């Protein structure tokens, strides 16, 4: 253990940082696009089904294949990896945002409108706060996926903890494999925990269970 850390310590830190960096950006992009899109979709009944259908289809493309597909378009390195992971992050967030928003009691939407809220005010002050727990569940799910799949990004030269694992596989060095896997798992767990805290903080007091 000490040996391993002595030998690979600094590498571990850099790779973990890369992993975090790739997933973080992908997830942030995912949230920025998918949450508003999900909200907008609730205003377009039929289009919504189509868009969510497309997102579901993208989700089923095997991750390695998706990464490989990125190469001819974006080349290799961090950018294509981030784009691929971003695509993966979309669906859970989009779907949950859509469902969460749709599930807001119509009485409350009616009440908001009836009191003279503009549609935007209704979304921001009523519908999103009510949908926060569901939206956050989607984000947490995406975060865990993205962090795990970011490992594969090393295949297209994006770096990250995948480098350690795949080196380990190639060189038959189990300690490298384990040394790469454990931080991935820890990262995923940590992200889930932190987002859980965030969820709690964002959820209106009276809706916390």
């Amino acid at each position, binding site marked *: 253990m000490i040996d391993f850390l002595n030998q690979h310590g600094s590498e571990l830190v850099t790779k973990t940082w890369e992993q975090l960096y790739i997933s973080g950006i992908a997830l942030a992009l995912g949230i920025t696009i998918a949450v508003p899109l999900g909200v907008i979709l609730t205003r377009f009944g039929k289009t919504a089904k189509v868009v969510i259908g497309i997102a579901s289809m993208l989700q089923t493309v095997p991750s390695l294949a998706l990464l490989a597909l990125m190469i001819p378009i974006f080349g290799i390195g961090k950018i294509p990896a981030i784009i691929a992971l971003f695509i993966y992050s979309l669906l859970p967030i989009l779907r949950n945002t859509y469902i969460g928003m749709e599930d807001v009691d119509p009485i409350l939407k*009616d009440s908001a409108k*009836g*009191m*003279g809220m503009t549609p935007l*005010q209704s979304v921001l002050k*009523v519908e999103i706060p009510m949908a926060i727990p569901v939206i956050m569940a989607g984000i947490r799910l995406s975060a865990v996926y993205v962090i795990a799949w970011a490992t594969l990004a090393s295949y297209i030269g994006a770096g990250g903890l995948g480098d350690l694992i795949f080196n380990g596989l190639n060189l038959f060095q189990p300690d490298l494999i384990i040394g790469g896997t454990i931080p991935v798992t820890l990262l995923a767990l940590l992200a889930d925990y932190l987002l859980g805290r965030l969820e709690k903080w964002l959820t209106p007091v009276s*809706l916390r269970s």
Partner: protein
Amino acid sequence: MPEKNPIVTFKDIEKVYRGGNVAIEHVNLTINQGDFVCFIGRSGSGKTTAMRMINRMLEPSGGVILYNGEDIHKTDAVKLRRQIGYVIQNIGLMPHMTIYENITLVPKLLKWPEEKRRKKAEELIKLVELPEDFLERYPSELSGGQQQRVGVIRALAADQDLILMDEPFGALDPITRESLQELVKHLQEKLGKTVVFVTHDMDEALKLATQIVVMDSGHVIQNATPSEILQHPANSFVEELIGEDRLMQARADVTTVSEIMLKNPVSITPGRSLVEAIRLMRKRRVDTLLVTDDDNYLKGYIDIETLDKSYRHATSVSDILNTKIFYVVDDTLLRDTVDRILKRGLKYVPVVDHAGKLRGIVTRAAIVDMVYDTIWGDSDAEEGAPGLENTENKDNPTKSDSASSSKEV
């Protein structure tokens, strides 16, 4: 009487929902400032639809709605809604906002400063007799009735003149319901608010409304004051809605004694013999006889008990005449006398004209047929029975209102 300024006018309004479902057809309606208008009708008759067109929650398919003289279609819907208080059918408090935030939602949209909002909320929460610390609670921490109260005051927070309420007291126990009814009535009467109120409870409508709009399958069947509705229901549908009991009560309000009296009372003159009297009783199967003189003036009565006790030493009707008799005057309103008649337990009461001539009798059965139910109703006990507790005191001439006379002859 506040002056009659129309606040809302429906001009030939029509509403057809998608799919061709006609919910409102050719409705013309004027709601005046300060009125309490109840929309009443069966489920699906279009009450909610009609109401929601006032604040543009729904757009009519045809016709024009004026709010303070302006075509609402040409105004900004959001602004309009902030001017009109609205209590939706299911209260709709925001569960994620405190009671304070709920109450001051519209003032906040209108950008009132925090102080002013706080003051308003405190004032309103007092109005509905809830403790001030409830302001910091969430709706889920309030009982259903308390939530309803908040729902009502929320519609007032921005000093709206017009308040729309869609069956606001639907699922409440009678006591809470009553106190809330009093509250809204107070708001309308004392603060001069105009209230449009949807209900399918006729009692509620009769109690609160200054104007009742009866709706059936998208049409206004009748639009009138409660008493007009009660006394002249437009058709059998309205009658049915009002219900048998209330119609009886309403009839008691306008019916005079002479309208329900029997016109051939059994009577006898004082000069007749007791033998004749007893024969007459037997023949007509009655146990008392009214006694009138030859000109048909009511003199008193004789009954079988006295007759039985004294036939040995008395010979004529005048010997056993009982002059202590309760009677009513023929043009008296039934509602003013009926409770007395019933209270005394009389089987019948003679009816005389103003001169004192016997005109007929009102039997207990006839009264019972008509108004029995309503006699014990609370509203009648207040206004229909002045001097109720005095009815045993026949000899006090000052006690009664002029409408009903009971005295000795």
